[in-house]
């Protein structure tokens, strides 16, 4: 393989992984937009999505599409429960309290997963075969196309949801001005509930489409969740297209760095970018500078 072909291969890998980061970052955005909470348990939704699909296939003997559907619905429900049990009881909680609660919840989810599924990695079969598709001297795994395709579908779907449906618009309204939203009769608590469900749904979907490539395991949530957060920060927290741009940028830089420099420092590259963004442009590439409110 020539260097150009190698770089092309790294780019393909980068865009695939980056799509996943974008999906996970999207989950962060949905909750952030309605509550200004960073949900540190977002990565656990990803892990639960993959592992519940495994259970659906192995234990309940469902075909993959049904197992996947069951898993995303179950995780959406877990997201809703999480809101009802741990987030809603808090009134006027400080950011520190919320950070600690979502971290506690993520540790709890991980612990439960290690008890239920053990600590070994599980594969999910590729959605449509594993014959690589040649592409200008590099190859694309069919699953990569699934990953990219589903990411695009979900992003477009969410866009329609927030811009075209009454619930979506109500969610945006209650995020933007909770009091004004309540005054016009929007049930803001219900909107927050939906945002947790939706976020669980998107996270689980990310976990299912990536599992055929990278396997799934009880502890994948931390790292992949944090990368998703990096994607959201790079693009601009709360910004819809920003997170896609951020995810793909992160995926590509990471893949190039791992391939050309050193794979051991792969994660350090991602978090190095995170720090640089936070220090110099915390509003992200696409974010508009927000005035600090007093």
């Amino acid at each position, binding site marked *: 393989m020539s260097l150009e072909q190698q770089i092309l291969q790294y780019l393909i890998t980068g865009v695939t992984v980056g799509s996943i980061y974008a999906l996970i970052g999207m989950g962060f955005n949905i909750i952030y937009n309605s509550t200004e909470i*960073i949900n540190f348990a977002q990565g656990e939704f990803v892990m639960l999505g993959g592992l519940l699909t495994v259970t659906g296939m192995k234990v309940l003997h469902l075909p993959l599409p049904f197992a996947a559907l069951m898993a995303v619905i179950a995780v959406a429900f877990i997201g809703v429960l999480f809101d009802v049990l741990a987030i809603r009881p808090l009134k006027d909680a400080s*950011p520190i309290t919320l950070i*600690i609660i979502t971290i*506690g919840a993520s*540790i709890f989810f991980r612990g439960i997963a290690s008890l239920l599924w053990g600590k070994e990695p599980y594969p999910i079969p590729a959605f449509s075969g594993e014959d690589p598709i040649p592409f200008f001297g590099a190859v694309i795994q069919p699953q990569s196309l699934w990953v990219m395709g589903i990411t695009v579908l979900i992003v477009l779907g969410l866009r329609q949801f927030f811009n075209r449906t009454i619930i979506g618009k109500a969610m945006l309204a209650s995020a933007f001005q909770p009091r004004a939203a309540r005054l016009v009769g929007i049930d803001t608590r219900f909107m927050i509930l939906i945002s947790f469900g939706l976020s669980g749904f998107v996270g689980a979907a990310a976990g299912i489409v990536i599992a055929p490539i990278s396997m799934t395991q009880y502890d994948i949530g*931390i790292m992949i969740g944090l990368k998703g957060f990096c994607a959201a920060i790079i693009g601009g927290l709360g910004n819809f297209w920003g997170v896609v741009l951020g995810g793909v940028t992160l995926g590509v830089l990471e893949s190039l760095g791992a391939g050309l420099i050193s794979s051991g*420092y792969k994660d350090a590259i991602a978090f*190095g970018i*995170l720090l640089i963004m936070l220090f110099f442009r915390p509003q992200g590439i696409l974010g508009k500078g927000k005035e600090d409110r007093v």
Partner: protein
Amino acid sequence: MKGVSFIRNPYTGFSVFTLALLLLPLAVTNDYYLNVLIFIGIHSIIAIGLDLLMGYTGQISLGHAAFFGLGGYISGVLSAKMGWAALAGLPFSILGVGLIAWIIGVPTLKLHGHYLAMATLGFGIIVFIFFNELVPLTGGPSGLTGIKGVSFMGFTFDSDLKYYFLVVFALLLSLFLSINVVRSRVGRALRAIHGSEVASSVLGVNVPRFKVAIFVLSAVYAALAGWLYAHYITFLSPSSFGFLFSVKLVTMVVIGSLGSIWGGIFGAALLTSLPEFLYIFEKYETTVFGLILVIVMIFMPKGLLRGLEDLALRTLASRKRRVGDQG
């Protein structure tokens, strides 16, 4: 101050605490328990520093395990690879970590809330990766061996009991310094920052400078603890300094009660000793730990110590009221 209401004057508390720590080895003769006490002491030092940052300035750090690790590794590498004495490495640990914290702190502390949490977390993970990847220096994932114990002018701290007193000395020093920082002009400025950064800067408090200074101080506390840890177990492995340990440190401070130095020590004692005594539950440890974190935060957002205090006060008050109704 309500947090220390049960001990009006912190110096009274300090004296009682000192006496208790010095007498404790009379009761604890078992080496295993002494070993647990040493770890509690080391963790308490980090918790005291982290509490200064979290409780008094309202900032959060999810990267303190990295400062703890750096404190240990700097002196540990000097000792294991270059044959330095433990005490010769101490200033390098302290100054090195202080410098790194300052470099990280200046841009980081411009950030608030979630952003700050993520920046410190990112820093912690990067340091953790370096511990793993700088194999020639740190030994990588398999660990760094051959770190020397502590000796001073011919006296070697070679038994658990002797090391216990070394840790107690360091703990008391940290505690004394913190009590004074909190009660000084600086401490009042810090509480003002916690109350409102804008209001305090209007009143002439140099907010960024104070925040960075406390961040550096709390990192230095962690470095001191790391140094004690490295030269006690004389072996370092990156897995002790990961993200989960940072979370555990934050939990110690939060469970103990934010903004109360004693709370930090209580939290460190609780979280360090629980797994040791509940080893039967080893399998469930992390799950239970996560659950405790969520439950304490929901029902006692001011921490276990203060939460229990409030609960006791409320029960007392309601009992009094009931007695009053009957009478």
